[in-house]
């Protein structure tokens, strides 16, 4: 169901704004700091669009804390939510929003945009923008969910390598290079039901930043998902559905829009999405060591096994 807002803003490309495409959603980012905006334009180059925005995020930066002070402040930061506004106990970020108009205004320390911080706040901002726009446009039921994973297209199909930070998503992307497939994003992808809904799932690249420099706005049907496990050997094990569900749901980026207070609804969405994905797609645990050949041999063997199963059915 598409819900139009009464006074939706149509925002076009200007010197102090840009529009970023995330799946079917378009987020406008406005910033008076043209240098900072230029930096963001470079990062999101392949995802810039002239489409009217579903949500507009206006950023303003302050420069009160150096990197060390910011890190200390972040460790003590708690969000305090009010009526259509929020701030942090550490005073490093605050904002107001009006989802009926599709606007979010955020003021924060400039260093928060540093992608080298332990938590990538730009990714969090885009995820929040995406799910806030889904609230506006799809009445809070996202047509696609962001999944913490490295997405690789091989032979016209996508496979995901999912897992928490530091588990090896970027390493898998590096070990893929251009030889074994096309890495669309080594940090996050969108997973959705395909149009026409024949029960298949598809994967699409997103602008969120990972450890590799390139992110590709490409998509493909989803073939399977590997849940990563660091190991001293390389091995693949097919997962039972319940184990896959329990582990996969922790890799779904929390689909909360700005100001959302009903956490149960959020986890209900994650549970429904995870139940759908685990019912349609085979899941494997992939233990891997830092060896390109054994990794791709294990993946090829899995592909062959899946191909045989497909032929049999």
């Amino acid at each position, binding site marked *: 169901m598409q819900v139009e807002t009464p006074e939706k803003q149509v925002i076009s490309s200007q010197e102090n704004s840009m529009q970023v495409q995330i799946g079917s959603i378009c987020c406008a980012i406005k910033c008076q700091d043209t240098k900072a905006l230029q930096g963001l334009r470079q990062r999101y180059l392949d995802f810039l669009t002239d489409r009217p925005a579903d949500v507009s995020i206006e950023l303003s930066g302050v420069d009160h804390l150096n990197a060390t002070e910011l890190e200390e402040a972040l460790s003590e930061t708690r969000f305090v939510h009010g009526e259509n506004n929020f701030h942090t106990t550490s005073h490093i970020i605050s904002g107001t929003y009006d989802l009926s108009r599709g606007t979010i205004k955020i003021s924060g320390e400039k260093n928060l945009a540093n992608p080298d911080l332990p938590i990538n706040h730009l990714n969090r901002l885009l995820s929040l923008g995406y799910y806030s726009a889904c609230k506006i446009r799809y009445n809070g039921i996202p047509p696609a969910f962001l999944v913490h994973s490295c997405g690789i297209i091989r032979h016209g199909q996508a496979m995901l390598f999912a897992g928490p930070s530091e588990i090896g998503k970027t390493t898998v992307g590096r070990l893929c290079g251009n030889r074994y497939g096309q890495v669309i994003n080594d940090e996050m992808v969108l997973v959705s039901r395909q149009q026409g809904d024949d029960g298949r799932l598809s994967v699409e690249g997103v602008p969120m930043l990972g450890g590799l420099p390139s992110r590709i706005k490409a998509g493909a049907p989803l073939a399977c998902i590997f849940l990563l496990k660091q190991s001293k050997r390389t091995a693949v094990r097919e997962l039972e559905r319940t184990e896959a569900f329990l582990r996969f749901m922790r890799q779904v980026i929390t689909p909360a829009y700005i100001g959302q207070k009903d956490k*149960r609804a959020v*986890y209900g969405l994650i549970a429904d999405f995870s*139940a759908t994905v685990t019912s349609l797609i085979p899941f494997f645990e992939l233990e891997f060591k830092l060896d390109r050949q054994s990794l791709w041999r294990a993946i090829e063997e899995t592909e062959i096994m899946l191909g045989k199963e497909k032929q049999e059915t």
Partner: protein
Amino acid sequence: MNNRIMQAEDLISRQIGDETVIIKDNGLSTYVLNRMAACIWELCDGTRGVDGITEKICERFEVDSDQANADVTETIDQLLKTGLVNQVKV
């Protein structure tokens, strides 16, 4: 332990294959129930105690009442410990 038993609030449950997954504390804790345990948990609606639940279990499963009572008592005990159900104070 024959107080009435009720499911805890704010739980999310989903049927995954033959098992029921219960999500608690906004996703921080998850529990997997087999078919019998899920049935017992579903019967914890605040209107029955162990005896009432045992009666229903005997109707649904081919199990004698002593065995059912032992299973229900043990399961309810575990559900109480994990906070998936509460005893209703009358």
